[in-house]
């Protein structure tokens, strides 16, 4: 009951934000729409019993990444001339068609699933920080530690690339 009542509006927010991102000519507006979409998505995550991920979604995505985006947009200081005008080219047509086709196909796939009902009962602490943490620092230790390398690489890479001179 509550799940449905929350899900559909939030889904709408997520989709709407995403579409808004596509539709807005100004990238800053786009970024804002995207943040909106992320909030919607995070809410759905909560519905999916993934509180930690929902929190991370807000913190990392809406908080860090999008700020970074906006920061970059501001840094680059684009003016009105740089705003693109929507055009119809073979590329856009094919691209849009591909996206649409994909979505259609996905319907086919998902409707084919044998078990459509979500379990109502979930294990204790499912999606909670503690249990996810135990998982990540336990069995997932190898990929997790690799992620640390990944982040280090990203840092070094970003510095190398963004430094003004070599």
């Amino acid at each position, binding site marked *: 009951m509550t799940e449905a009542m929350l899900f559909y509006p939030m889904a709408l927010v997520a989709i709407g934000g995403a579409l808004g991102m596509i539709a807005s000519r100004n990238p800053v507006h786009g970024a804002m729409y995207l943040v909106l979409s992320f909030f919607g998505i995070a809410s759905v995550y909560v519905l999916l019993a993934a509180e930690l991920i929902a929190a991370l979604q807000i913190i990392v995505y809406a908080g860090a990444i999008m700020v970074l985006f906006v920061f970059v947009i501001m840094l680059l200081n684009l003016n009105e001339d740089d705003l693109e005008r929507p055009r119809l080219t073979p590329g856009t047509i094919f691209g849009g068609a591909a996206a649409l086709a994909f979505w259609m196909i996905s319907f086919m*796939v998902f409707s084919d699933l044998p078990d459509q009902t979500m379990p109502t009962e979930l294990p204790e602490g499912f999606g909670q920080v503690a249990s996810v943490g135990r998982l990540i620092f336990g069995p*997932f230790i190898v990929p997790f530690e*690799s992620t640390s*390398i*990944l982040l*280090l690489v990203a840092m*070094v890479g*970003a510095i*190398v690339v963004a430094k003004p001179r*070599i």
Partner: protein
Amino acid sequence: MPKYSSADILGLAPALVLIVGALTLLLLEVFQESEKRGYQAWFTAIVAAIASLVALPMLDGEAHRILLTQDGLFFAVADRFGGAMAIVVAAGLALSALTAGAFLGARKAERGEFYALAMFAASGMVLLAQATDLLMIFVALEIMSISTYALAAYLRRGMRTTEAAFKYFILGAFSTALYIYGVALVYGATGGQTGLQQVAEAASEGSLLLMAGVAFVAAGFFFKVAAAPFHMWTPDVYEGAPTPVTAFMAAGVKAAAFAALFRVFTVAFGSEDVALHGWMNVVVVLAILTMVVGNLLAIPQRSVKRLLAYSSIAHAGYLMAAIAAAANPEVRAAAGEGLLYYLATYTFAGIGAFAVVAALERQGAEGPLMWDLDRFAGLARVRPALAMAMGLFLLSLAGIPPTAGFMGKLLIFRAAVDAKLYGLVIFGVLTSLVGVYYYLRVVVYMYMREREPSVGELPAPRLAMGVALALAAIGTLILGIVPGFFGEIARASTLALGG
């Protein structure tokens, strides 16, 4: 909770060695004065050598599942396949690093970060080859990719470099998204599994959901290995990136991606239903397409670098043939042997060829003229050894005996014939004939044309480059003339993969 043991550390040793090497360089860089960076390339090569040394124990013995949990979860494995790939990757790293040492040295652009990123990338590649979980593969793939994005953009003053990095990045991110979405679908289809073996157990029959997942995972991999039609970034990126990076990308990235692709497709998606009646036909078609496109489009190129880029696409096509053959469980071992052998040969010959391009690259000019065929004209007179080495690499790439490339092709075509993919093989040999044409064109320029003064001076020869070329040449010859040695390793490693 997994139990730790020293074997787990030893199993990850090659990657760890590379990471430690990278960190060491980063630390040293802080205290570095600009003129004294010549050692960095050698250091990297030595680290690579150590990494391959510590990978040696993996070559004989049982596969060790790293940090195996009670649930049977494990994310990486120390097996022969991983060990062999680690050695190939380390060889690629060492050769590219030495090439880069000469290349960057000549451009006064040596920085520790470069080699550190290269080593990080290599560690990603090693992990990729050892990874046994779709998520672990995802992470390793990203370590490798993000390092190479940065490496591609390394000489950012050049317009082309940033463009190349940009293209690589955008499309790479796109392919990552495809891949991870595919993993998510597989996860769903298997009732919440991402480990390769668990996936295999849960999904011996191809449900729609699973096949959709496979499709996206495959698309992600096809991008990384530059299989047509996911190849279009390759020529641009390879041309724009600094040449040593290109070499590293062409050999290392591709090798690691193919290793992971092979492991995923044979272990996780290797059941008859999913493989033989599932992805095989698509891979066959893509292999043919890749061979055709790569070889065909290399023909009109005048820039040798771009030519080699297209040729690397073509080689991806041959490797795809091995993947296609691996769909058949009976020939999986042979296909893996061919794949591994081919990767090794391409590592030497491909990097060698790009290294020669790097050695000849015209400084101070922008545009395709930097690597124009005219730069190669009369090379045999001016630098006979360089020309001979290039000739050797090209012959190997063309698959002409007694170079390594021939043995690689032989093994791959053998596997394809075993799998009864005759059309694929015939396409393979015919397109490799086309390949011979453009490789020969370079030889023609080197040996049969006179040098025009207008193409500019050649850069001075450098020791690191010489060593890199010599090593690559020796590797190319040894793999061609004494194939048994590495062939046995390749065979044993893929047999153990559970074909």
